[in-house]
């Protein structure tokens, strides 16, 4: 069943490629399509997150945390009561993410399989193709070239005057992952808050993780990461959820409390 799921993604990606004739453009359009289709889930996730954040400020919530901090079972019961009373679904913020996870993994596997670079990989790719939808004879082999990149290999831009290559995609993936994390993090009132500290740590670690992956992955995948980051930022901006202050923190003048 998973194979069929990935097969659907592969055929969608290759169908777009058949229309536009360029695999890099196909990856970009495919990523946009997936983000548009999953946009309702993103909206639901944002609403759920916002509701949970508001709940943190509710006095009744804070009282419960203090009153039952040593009785986890009672704490959980009271929390559930409050959720029901306020009409909040605690899973609303994470369920969309869980649903999107197989979509992201499927998309990732589809791009890898489509970039078949050995006979066995190509043989397996042709088996996923729907012959009624795609003309295998005309699209195979895929044109893996996009700008200066071979999408089946890690990206290194080589210039005549430089003795080394520049990992352009790794750099832009790192930057956009950092931007996305920063812009989409909720504003923090208490810098010493444990959750805020964890978020800051993740915001620092994730860009380097994604940059490292972009260095080792085929550039087609890195292109997907980059486009996905940019679209994510645009989505949040359209929904008015981007926190520009996180990017440019305002310093209080000296002597001000």
């Amino acid at each position, binding site marked *: 069943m998973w194979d069929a799921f990935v097969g659907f993604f592969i055929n969608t990606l290759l169908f777009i490629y058949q229309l536009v004739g360029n695999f890099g453009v196909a990856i970009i359009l495919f990523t946009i399509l997936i983000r548009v289709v999953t946009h309702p889930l993103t909206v639901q996730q944002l609403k759920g997150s916002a509701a949970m954040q508001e709940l943190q400020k509710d006095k009744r919530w804070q009282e419960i945390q203090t009153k039952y901090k040593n009785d986890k079972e009672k704490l959980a019961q009271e929390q559930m009561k409050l959720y029901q009373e306020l009409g909040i679904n605690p899973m609303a913020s994470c369920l969309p993410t869980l649903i999107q996870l197989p979509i992201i993994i499927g998309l990732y596997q589809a791009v890898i399989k489509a970039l078949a670079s050995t006979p*066995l990989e190509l*043989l397996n790719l*042709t088996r996923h193709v729907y012959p009624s939808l795609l003309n295998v004879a005309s699209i195979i082999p895929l044109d893996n070239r996009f700008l200066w990149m071979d999408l089946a290999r890690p990206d*290194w831009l080589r210039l005549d005057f430089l003795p080394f290559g520049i990992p352009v995609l790794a750099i832009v993936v790192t930057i956009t992952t950092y931007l996305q994390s920063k812009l989409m993090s909720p504003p923090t009132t208490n810098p010493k808050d444990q959750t805020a500290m964890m978020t800051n*740590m993740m915001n620092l670690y994730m860009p380097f993780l994604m940059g490292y*992956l972009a260095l080792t*992955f085929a550039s087609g995948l890195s292109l997907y990461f980059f486009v996905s980051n940019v679209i994510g930022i645009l989505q949040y901006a359209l929904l008015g959820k981007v926190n520009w202050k996180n990017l440019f923190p305002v310093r209080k003048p000296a002597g001000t409390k």
Partner: protein
Amino acid sequence: MRLKQFSIILLLVFTSLLLGGCSGAGAMANNWPGITIDQGVIYMAYAGEVMAVRVNDGSLIWRYPEKAENGRTYYAAPAVSDGLVVVGDYAGTLHALDAATGTQKWPFTPQIKSGNAARFVGSALIHQDMILAPTAGHDNLYAVSLTGKELWRFPTEQAIWAQPVSDDERVYIASMDHYLYAVRLSDHQQVWKRDLGAALVATPLLAEGTLYLGTLGNEMIAISTEGEILWRYTADGSIWSSPVLVEGALYFGDTAGFIHAVDAATGAGRWKVDLSSGAITGSGAVFADHLVFTGENGSLAAIGLDGRRLWTQEIQGKLYTGPAVVEEKIIVAVTQGEQLLKAFDSNGNELWSFVPPK
């Protein structure tokens, strides 16, 4: 909380290493083994090494390199001639080895402006005093001297996975860009090229002035050495290997699992047989008055020239490489099996099997 933070960091590091290992972009790619037999020795390229194994008893003679190098894999069947074994790796180097000892004589690593490494997927051809090596990534056919110096290169638009063939005057290159090229050896100029409508991954068969080659568009095509298409035959699936020619008929398999017999002069189909063992990606082998084929799902089958199935042997593992016949033995290379090589007699009885020593 510090333990929780540390655990999360550890999980993220592990995830990044795992994803990095699953990237699919490195040189450790998947493919099936390539084998060549010469003077009683099987030369096999698979995964991280090249091995020489005796035909008579399946014992190992040598392996190269002595220690597998990280990121270097070998899939192209070695080319062997006059004591020289030439094999390309997926990381971009063509190795020339001593056939008797497996020691390296020289490496050749082609360089191009983009800095990308070539990938040797198709086998080289040792022809007279030069080596003709097809590449992917660079999409060139390289002509290299027997001492490892580049002589010239001929570019195509896409990868070349098929071994080139030559009639002493020209070399014929089947490329994944859909074209069959004829290039004059004396001055490496193109004589003609013909668009065959689909990617070409199979090595052409050259016989009596005619080239026969299969395409990923499900066709077997006969084309004269002057570039004139003589006939086209439509199979049930794509064709990944050379046909064999016996008494005026061509025999080949397709990925739909059928073995076809086609009249070589007219392209008319004579019969077809469903092997029922998945895709057939290797060439058949001629054994006395019959043929042997391998099917992906582990079948080694003997088929008469009239299409009758004579016997079938089931082998554990995947069979993508075609069988080879030598000294009354059928040699089979296995992918994803416990044994890497197996030998059978003319009735399908197993003679020996080879497992590489650790």
